[in-house]
């Protein structure tokens, strides 16, 4: 009875190997293609160009800034969830799922409205007298990070909520009875509990931000270029597929290394041992 499951898995396994693993292998191979045979020229050219290198650094920075932003916004929401009753908890889950299931392009569009010259931010700043003329946060990194934080926030909230919903309330009650104040409970009990969820969320947020083509292109604008646009430009405008492949491999490796590092940290005994 034990091995009888394998035939069912074969179709999807074949699909994965033929249409997923193979293309990726080809992509990696393609990135080494030069004018005469196998070469590292594409990589050397990529890292040798100061502009490209800056794009890579900008992409990593955007990812990190969004990770920090989503953490600062997500942890209070998780705490709110923790201290709420059943109904409020369900409302929080529902409100988290709405943006998550709403199209990315729609969310990006919403941010165009918010960040624009005639948007609520600009109007508020004018009404408060902070700025005399309409200000736009479009095409700025600040605006992009604000948008990315909202767009990716569910990715960090959901793992946190998943952990907190199966944590008994007694955990913090015990600390309270022992005389710990609320801040102490937060730092010494709740935060360590949340840590595996935070790590999972950070991976998702970083991966999503660094490859969010539409939002980056529309809100970042032409002056703030990130790796995905660079890849698309090599393919669509310059038709340099080997170069595009090399950049894709760099993106893949940098996200992949981070992923592996985070996974290893989250499996570390001392971090998850007491959770």
């Amino acid at each position, binding site marked *: *009875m*034990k*091995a*009888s*499951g394998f035939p*069912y*898995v*074969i*179709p*999807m396994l074949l*699909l*994965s190997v033929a*249409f*997923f693993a193979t*293309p*990726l292998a080809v992509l990696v191979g*393609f990135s080494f293609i030069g004018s005469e045979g196998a070469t590292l020229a594409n990589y050397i050219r990529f890292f040798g160009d100061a502009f490209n290198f800056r794009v890579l650094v900008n992409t990593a920075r955007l990812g990190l800034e969004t990770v920090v932003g989503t953490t600062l*916004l*997500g942890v*209070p*929401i998780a*705490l*709110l969830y923790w*201290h709420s009753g059943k109904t409020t908890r369900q409302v929080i889950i529902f409100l988290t799922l*709405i943006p998550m299931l*709403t*199209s*990315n*392009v*729609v*969310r990006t*569009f*919403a941010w*165009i*409205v*918010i960040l*624009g010259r*005639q948007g*609520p931010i600009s*109007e508020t700043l004018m009404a408060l007298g902070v700025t005399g003329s309409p200000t736009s946060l479009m095409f700025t990194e600040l605006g992009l990070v604000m948008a990315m934080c909202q767009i990716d*926030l569910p990715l960090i*909230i959901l793992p946190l909520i998943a952990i907190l919903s199966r944590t008994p309330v007694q955990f913090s*009650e015990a600390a309270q009875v022992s*005389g710990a*104040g*609320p*801040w102490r409970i937060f730092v010494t009990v709740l935060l360590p509990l949340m840590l595996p969820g935070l790590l999972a969320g950070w991976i998702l947020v970083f*991966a999503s931000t660094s*490859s969010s*083509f*539409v939002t980056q292109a*529309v809100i970042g604008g032409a002056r703030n270029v990130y790796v*995905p646009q660079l*890849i*698309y430009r090599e393919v669509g405008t310059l038709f340099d*597929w080997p170069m595009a*492949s090399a950049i894709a491999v760099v*993106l*893949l490796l940098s*996200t992949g290394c981070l992923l592996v590092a985070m996974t290893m940290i989250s499996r570390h005994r001392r971090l998850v041992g007491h959770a």
Partner: protein
Amino acid sequence: MRDTDKSQIGENPIPAFLYKAFVFGFGGLCVIYLVAPIFIALTMSFTSGQSLKYPPEGFSLRWYEALLDPVRSATEHVAAWNSLKIAGLAVLGSLLFAVPATIGMSRMRRGTVGAIEPLLLAPLVLPSLVYGLAALIVANFVGFQPSLWLTVTGHIVVFGPLMYRAASVVAQGLNPSLAEASTVMGATWFTTLRRVILPLLMPGILAGAFLVFIQSLDNVSVSLFLADAQTTVLPLRMFALIEESLDVRVAAISGILIGLTLIVMLVARRVLAPPKQA
């Protein structure tokens, strides 16, 4: 006992108050930050103005009318229809591939599952833009031109794992003796599949279908590389409308998509909600 305000003797009330303010005040603001953009996009779609001024000066349905106009919005209609076709076929494809895989995996040894599963789930982690490029290169090698069918294939590969994951979460919770009991009672494997396994997996399959459909409808980075010029999909069309002219019809499309998401979510809550007494 859940509240933190059960201050004990000697406890300083100021940090306790600050904590409450942090959780309920700042936490509440964070929730607003999370949903306000959706609300803003929705109200924007009812503007009577020509521009994306917010708050809108007046309300009207003019942008919805413009969007429904078959002449003026012909391209958008084609794009929407293409997107629906692709998403529907992607759901069908992921049913065909991922559901059997889920059933198979639930019958295999833990070690084997652990060895195969990462390969099946890998597309979820990989930036789909990278996958789109890889698929385009290979398709070009084999001599396939970008097309609707190529896009559908790409979507099945990238989003099928969502179906697998949603269904396997349910499968892991199932009691294997239910299927065994059915077999012992003399049911053929097909009867067992149809009458026992599939009904039990249904909540996971529905959740998976919902996720695949939504993700496929929204995907830009795979369609960007794999769709041909005739197969404009809705998110790419919206992207173009936003980049070119900030056409307010985008607000109306957004409004419709938000409305659809809400409806489907409410339906899903009804259908997928576990029985009250459970």
